[in-house]
């Protein structure tokens, strides 16, 4: 058995509703973009590093059966 890895053609993106008056100024969206460390969301999603978030955030559901393998 051997692994073959390919990047998906799709890109995960943050959707900003520009019908809201307060999100229409592009400088707001630029600030929203610059505040994000691009590497972090991907790490949290695709690697074991996201466990850190599970344990430190109130929204986490640590202890549920589906996370016990972590």
């Amino acid at each position, binding site marked *: 058995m051997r692994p073959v*890895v390919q990047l998906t053609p*799709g890109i995960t993106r943050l959707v900003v509703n520009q*019908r809201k008056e307060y999100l229409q100024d592009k400088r707001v969206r630029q600030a929203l973009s610059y*505040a*994000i460390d691009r590497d972090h969301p991907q790490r949290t*999603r695709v690697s074991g590093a996201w466990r850190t978030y*599970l344990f430190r955030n109130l929204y986490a559901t640590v202890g549920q059966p589906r996370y016990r393998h972590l």
Partner: protein
Amino acid sequence: MGWDFDRVLIYWSNTPPEDVDVRALYLQDAYAEIGLTLEIESRQYGAVADAHNEGFYDLTFLGGGSDALDPHFAIRTYTCGGTWSIWLGYYNERLEEKRLAGMSTSDPDARQTVYREASLILNDELPFIYLFRLPTVYAISDRLAEFEPPIWFRHANSTMMDWVLAD
């Protein structure tokens, strides 16, 4: 720019209730560092779709599409009057001109010029905020030869006629 730092942004998550939208949790932390408050609300996918249609969401995540393929695929997302144009509330006539110009020529140099100009507009105005691409991993038997990853994982069998299985 007059941003009201008392404003609370609502992030709509369509992650199932038993799951955790870790991207949203990260976002909440990252925006807290620049003084923005993000509240996460979990909704069924249908409700999030309604939010797109009706326009009462602030932020959501979406993944997928074909934005990493040839630019003439990607730029369709921003077609003025198209679904995403309506959902995002984004309309740019200059970008629409570039989209039409890109489709009207097959000259590589002309296409490069047009799509570079389009990317400059998109990187400046950020109708979407692009984040990352996920890898698709295939586990391939050592007996299987001539496997080519398909362009889209749901089409995993699309190259099957070329596969060779050793005895």
